[in-house]
């Protein structure tokens, strides 16, 4: 699946998007964040504060317990500050 990173998440990971292939046992958004955190120091820094992290599955806001299912795109970003 495609992973997109925005704002400080993008900066800390060092890329705006990438193709990811999490293992079978990764079911929820929370699972995926935990898995990504283990992918290197940059990911660990990006996901240091998982509690405030926001996620969108196929461009829809979701909570951390949401199932990833067949989503093609997941995005991670800090709380929005538009307007």
């Amino acid at each position, binding site marked *: 699946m495609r992973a997109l990173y*925005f704002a*400080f998440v993008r900066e800390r990971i060092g890329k705006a998007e990438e193709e990811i292939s999490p293992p079978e046992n990764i079911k929820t958004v929370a699972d995926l964040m935990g898995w990504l955190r283990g992918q290197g120091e940059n990911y660990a820094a990006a996901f240091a504060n998982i509690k405030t992290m926001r996620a969108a599955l196929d*461009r829809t806001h979701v909570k951390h317990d949401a199932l990833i299912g067949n989503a093609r795109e997941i995005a991670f*970003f*800090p709380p929005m*500050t*538009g*307007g």
Partner: protein
Amino acid sequence: MSARIIVRVQKESFDASTEAAALTQGRRDIGALVTFTGLCRDEGGALAALGIEHYPGMAEEEITRVAREAASRWPLEGIVAIHRYGLIQPGEPIVLVVTASTHRAEAFAAATFLMDYLKTEAPFWKKQHLSGSGPENWVESKAEDNAAVQKWRV
């Protein structure tokens, strides 16, 4: 009768009155027009520019979703919602919301609702570029903005 909804996410600036005219031109049934423009503040000279990052695609979809929600809550004739991205100088406009209705209460409520949602639900992030050789800071989300949007969730 359904509201006309115009949503744009763009790098370029906009002219509020031109956008508002799109809702009122040739109409004789609109009694109230509310326009909100959010502008880039220089924070007492500390801010050189604001860099606005967005999630292309989702930004438009999310604003459209919120605009439709507003149109379902209040009897509106039209909505314009425009949000810019990219580098924005102090004094420049960032966001525009226009609501047109028969009566003022609905137009005011819908414009307030739209702004509360845009602040907290639309995927935009602001980075402050400080004056001089100051650092760049991501703007933190505000508790008051989160409280403002909560009051609409019934």
